[in-house]
């Protein structure tokens, strides 16, 4: 029995949200049931991810491989839950459960009618399924399909609010994201044409044999991938869609988009770079230098852009641009420490940023105010919300005891191992800038005269979800043991390949 | 996978494709552009057929018609001219 469950769990975690997503519209009138079902599926996903992670940890690096339809690898499609897959599945489940909980009973105000809420949940689950798929897939074309599913559901989530600006942001996002996925498809095409395989492992082997004969094709494929995923994950000069999309979406959607969706694309890029091209090619083509450089530019530019925003959610959105820079910087560190730091930072940012967006959403919902200067004294009126916001900010800035610190620690360590000096300085400057754009919010909230208005903490489910995320941040910061273990193993596996 | 000789049919069709796409870039009237898009997609279907992938040809034809019609409908509900 357990064996059967274990054997089928990799596909189950992907299928379950997708299946429920399609069942959901039939219950559209019974809101309670819909919300319950969503939360149930998310909880199930968390349990499944935890179980898979425990197995992967126990198996010491032997991944769980699931063959769709029972076909073996070069012909069939493989799902592989290795350290990376289990790690990202945990991140997905750990973030999307609180976010779903936050949406409960609260969403109708933001998106309008009940039907729209149901539609929101459908898209939410589709996105979840797609992300889970990205975590476990081992097939290049599957990457494209999942990326497209995720993109479309993200667009749907962005446009969930019945507001012209939301529609506009969604359209911009749709066009740019489709451009990105077309580029990704092109890159996959080049890989397929040169190697004749879509399975990542086989493709990588073949590539290792022939890349010296066709360096141009490899170049083109890498650059297509980089630009394609760069657009999708909002790497600095390609981030144009992000601020509008993430600030006009309903708060749970902003949280999931900033926290998870971008991370999904980054995980895909990571897999393609390290599992398909492999670290020898990355170094041979100096891709790692490009990544580090791009990350540095993104950190500085994103932070400075965030400093100039007065609208709370826009500032958080630009902060995402800056934080993505850290992850790109980590992607370019071809050593275990750096990649561990990158993965951990990715998880840390997923949790922290969704906590920040949810807290911001709760504040905006309670006050009706968008800009930071109008939120004076809110820390007294909404203590829990603001406390969670503070925890999230501290984590992003990288204060010890919170998750961001450990990510930054390993990133710096990785940089030193790679012999990079300037990126280390940039990481620190980024933290200081991050403090510069987040602490004024906290100061305004706690240390300015309280406005005489009836602002209150959100309802119980929202509070629970906020507290869950804050606890997750602190746990990741204080006792990251198994999590760090998974991340460092995944990193080590990337570097073992050829 | 090198093409030793040239398949002229495919070449002509590809040429039409390029011309059509350029036309879509330049035409100001959106209805005309969408009509060209319909032609483009039909050409595409023919190319698929020439390349021995009939399944793709059928899909492309269906999808092309579907998209053209949808775009037409939307254009008639919104504005026709490009500003």
């Amino acid at each position, binding site marked *: 029995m357990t064996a059967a469950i274990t054997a089928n769990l990799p596909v189950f975690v992907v299928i379950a949200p997708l299946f429920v997503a399609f069942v959901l519209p039939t219950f559209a009138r019974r809101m309670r049931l819909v919300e319950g079902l969503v939360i149930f599926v998310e909880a199930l996903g968390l349990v499944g991810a935890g179980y898979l992670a425990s197995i992967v940890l126990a198996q010491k690096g032997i991944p769980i491989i699931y063959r769709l339809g029972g076909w073996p690898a070069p012909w069939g499609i493989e799902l592989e839950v290795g350290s990376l897959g289990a790690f990202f599945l945990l991140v997905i489940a750990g973030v999307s459960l609180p976010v779903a909980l936050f949406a409960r009973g609260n969403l109708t105000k933001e998106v309008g009618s009940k039907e729209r809420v149901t539609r929101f949940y459908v898209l939410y689950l589709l996105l979840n399924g797609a992300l889970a798929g990205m975590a476990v897939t081992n097939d290049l074309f599957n990457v494209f399909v999942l990326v497209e599913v995720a993109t479309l559901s993200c667009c749907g989530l962005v446009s969930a609010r019945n507001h*012209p600006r939301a529609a506009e942001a969604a359209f911009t996002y749709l066009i740019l994201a489709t*451009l990105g996925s077309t580029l990704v498809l092109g890159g996959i095409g080049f890989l397929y044409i040169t190697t004749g395989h879509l399975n990542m492992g086989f493709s990588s082997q073949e590539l290792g044999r022939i890349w010296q004969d066709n360096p141009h094709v490899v170049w083109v494929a890498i650059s297509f991938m980089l630009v394609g995923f760069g657009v999708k994950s909002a790497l600095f000069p390609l981030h144009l869609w992000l601020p509008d999309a993430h600030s006009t979406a309903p708060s749970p959607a902003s949280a999931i988009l900033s926290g998870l969706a971008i991370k999904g694309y980054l995980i895909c890029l990571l897999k393609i770079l390290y599992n398909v091209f492999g670290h020898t090619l990355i170094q041979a083509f100096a891709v790692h230098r490009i990544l580090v450089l791009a990350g540095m530019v993104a950190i500085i530019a994103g932070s400075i852009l965030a400093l100039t925003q007065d609208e709370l959610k826009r500032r958080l959105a630009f902060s995402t641009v800056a934080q993505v820079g850290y992850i790109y910087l980590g992607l370019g560190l071809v050593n275990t420490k750096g990649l561990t730091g990158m993965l951990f930072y990715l998880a840390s940012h997923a949790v922290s940023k969704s906590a920040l967006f949810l807290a911001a959403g709760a504040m905006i919902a309670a006050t009706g105010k968008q800009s930071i200067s109008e939120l004076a004294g809110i820390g007294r009126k909404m203590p829990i919300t603001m406390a969670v916001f503070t925890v999230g900010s501290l984590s992003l800035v990288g204060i010890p005891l919170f998750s961001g610190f450990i990510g930054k620690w390993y990133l710096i360590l990785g940089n030193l191992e790679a012999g990079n000096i300037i990126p280390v300085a940039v990481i620190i400057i980024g933290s200081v800038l991050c403090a510069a754009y987040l602490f004024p919010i906290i100061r305004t909230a706690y240390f300015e005269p309280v406005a005489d208005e009836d602002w209150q903490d959100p309802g119980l489910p929202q509070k629970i979800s906020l507290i869950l995320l804050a606890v997750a941040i602190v746990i990741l910061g204080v006792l990251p043991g198994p999590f760090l273990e998974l991340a460092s193993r995944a990193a080590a596996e990337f570097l073992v390949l050829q | 996978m090198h*093409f030793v000789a040239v398949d002229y049919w495919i070449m002509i069709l590809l040429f039409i494709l390029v011309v059509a796409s350029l036309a879509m870039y330049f035409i100001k009237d959106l209805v005309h552009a969408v009509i060209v898009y319909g032609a483009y997609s039909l050409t595409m279907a023919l190319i698929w057929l020439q390349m021995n992938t009939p399944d793709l040809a059928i899909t492309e034809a269906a999808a092309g018609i579907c998209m053209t019609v949808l775009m037409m409908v939307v254009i008639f509900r919104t504005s026709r001219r490009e500003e």
Partner: protein
Amino acid sequence: MRILLEKLMANYPYFAAVVLFTIGALTVMTRSNLFKKLIGINIMESGIFLMFVAAGNIRGGAVPILDEANTKSVYINPLPSALMLTGIVVSVSVTAFALALIVRLYKSYGTTDAHRIAEMRNEVSER
């Protein structure tokens, strides 16, 4: 020059794919009309599809259907076309979604031009 031309002639579907991709990208980036952007996206995608299918095509190969009447021994690679089937479906759904958004935008702004919409949004936020 001659070698280049020969290479082009030998790989003409790829060449066409690149041209289509470029024209599509150009349309997306330089045309401000939302329909044009949409059409551009579709052109780009078909360029990529063309590349894939051309890679799977073998001159003189047969449609890969196993049949008594099908006597040829060389079949084309069926995988790319199967993949592009998915691609086409995805592009249709993107188009449909974009069209829905265009309708919504037209209702709120009264135009389908991206620049005009951006201008009007600024007016809205200033007010």
